[in-house]
């Protein structure tokens, strides 16, 4: 309901704006870094860390006036994160490599011009659909445990890590494939000539829907958060 209302207001603003339309189409790619917002404070030997991924998109921009455009960047974005072990287990981790199809709708506002660069900000919403996943990492392999005596005669245990890199089958009972959330970002662009514009943008994608379905009582929510640094080029269709 909230999304519908927000989109309605957004569309109203757009239609009320004088249409000095200029469309452009482009290509954008970059690095993403995901994080899982949840609470694992009870897991004393683990922490959630960012993990790099990639993003790729075909941006389409529709200029409404000199300073405001509406933009959509359908594409693929990875929302990867790791659960890393701490202290004596440092080096052990499990990374979750999650690939989403994503459809953002953003406003793009030109903020100011400095030298030959134009600085802008983005804000909007996105819809994402989880299309593939895998888990990779290295974790203690309990059956490799061995004991030995140290120099002072005390018996100590050591355990080897085993590596893994496996496809994760998205589970309908647990995993919430669809997500939507908000985007905020900023960037800079440079007009190369009448037709081409190059740009770089940093955006934050914050999911408002949980990554997991509500399948158990007292479930601790989990939300994707993704930072994305992309570069791209737009071609004017005028």
């Amino acid at each position, binding site marked *: 309901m*909230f999304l519908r209302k927000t989109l309605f207001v957004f569309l109203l603003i757009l239609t009320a704006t004088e249409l000095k339309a200029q469309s452009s189409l482009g290509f954008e790619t970059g690095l993403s870094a995901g994080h899982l*917002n*949840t*609470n*694992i*404070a*009870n*897991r*004393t*030997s*683990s922490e959630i860390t960012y993990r790099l991924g990639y993003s790729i998109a075909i941006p389409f921009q529709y200029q409404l006036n000199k*300073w405001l455009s509406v933009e959509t960047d359908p594409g693929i974005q990875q929302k990867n994160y790791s*659960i890393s072990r701490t202290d004596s*287990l440092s080096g052990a981790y*499990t990374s979750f490599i999650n690939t989403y199809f994503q459809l953002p709708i953003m406003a793009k*506002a030109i*903020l*100011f011009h400095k030298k030959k660069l134009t600085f802008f*900000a983005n*804000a909007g919403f996105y819809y994402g659909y989880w299309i593939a996943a895998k*888990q990779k990492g290295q*974790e*203690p*392999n*309990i*059956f*490799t*445990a*061995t*004991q*030995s*005596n140290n120099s002072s*005669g005390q*018996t100590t*245990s050591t*355990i*080897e890590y*085993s590596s*893994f890199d*496996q496809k*994760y089958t998205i*589970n309908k*009972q*647990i995993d919430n494939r669809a997500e939507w*959330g*908000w985007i*905020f970002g900023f960037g800079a662009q440079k007009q190369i000539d009448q037709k081409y514009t190059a740009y770089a943008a940093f955006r934050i994608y*914050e999911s*408002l829907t949980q990554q*997991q379905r509500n*399948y*158990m*009582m*007292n*479930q*601790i*929510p*989990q*939300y994707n958060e993704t930072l994305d640094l992309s570069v791209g080029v737009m071609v004017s269709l005028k």
Partner: protein
Amino acid sequence: MKRIVYFLSGLYLTGILLTSCHKDIASPINNAAPTNFNEVFDDFWNQMNVNYVYWDIDSTNWDSMYTRYQPVFASLDIHNNNDLRKSIKYFRQMTDGLIDSHYNLSFFPAAIVDSSVNPALDRKVASGTYRNPFKFTTLDTNNYIDNGFTAGSYAGTSAVCGTINHNILYFSCSEFGLEKAFLTTTPNGVKNALQEFFDSVQNGIAIKGIIIDIRDNPGGDVSDLSFLIGHLINAPLQIGYTRFKTGNGRLDYSPWINAYVTPQSGGKAVNIPVIALADNFSASMAEATTMTIHALPTGLFIGERTWGATGPLATNSLYDDGQFTIPGFMFIYTSSVAFKYIDGNIYEGKGFSPDINVPFNHTAVLSGDDPQLDSAINHVH
């Protein structure tokens, strides 16, 4: 400039509005000592979600346990001894279907310190086919093992190594604390028995087969698996897969990770029959040893179906799951990882079946015979 201010203000307000849609990410998990039964129940129920590793294959409906037993526990007084005793009954009812056959609850308050809850044992006793465990050591050393065998004990573990008919190498242990006994500087019989076993395997007395007897062995140190069986291989041996919990959700699992037994220094790939003798009371590490021997090219398992506690245990910090404590009230003993055997099956709660089934025969053992050991000897010959 105005439009920048408006735009940024709009963004800021929108961000605040949208972020407020997020649920507060609080955790229901509390490691503080409970002061009443409400807190005991909540701690237990929530920590089971996090730490128990078999939720995906366990038929227990844990949510319905909350609905049913939360009000029951809320009505109990933690300072009342009768209520403390009643709580044991409710814990037993809540957990009676859990398949983890290591699972055991023990309690700290004085009124119930002698109580425990062990669902696997309860199920076996209730099945009507339960028998008491039997120690074979005296019978076998008197009637089967050649004179001159080596035996001894250290810190609760006893071991025997010798030969049968002078051409079968026999090793047995009462539980797994072998590497610890071997490494200690204190002279002990377990170390001697192990040394004889390793020397016999490596240097080769004229043996036709090896029998490792782990009947009535409840398990012990997981490091003993590679320590013992690693002398019978010269390359890593995959025995299955392990999986642990990666998050607080009941179904947050790691992938299945290959589980290997690693060869020991001087390890030698044996090409003679290696027989695991195991029975209904072979549990945990004894089952892992049995399954590892079965995975050897010349391995065989003779005896009875094992106990069914196949998931290894470690301290909670190793995987952030498994055994845990409700401070001042109870200790929950449970597997740290789930184990899937190399054949793709999970034997937790079921037990591992022998290649040659030889049931325990009480009449035979009373008359000095050991039909299971007889079967192993016949197989070697």
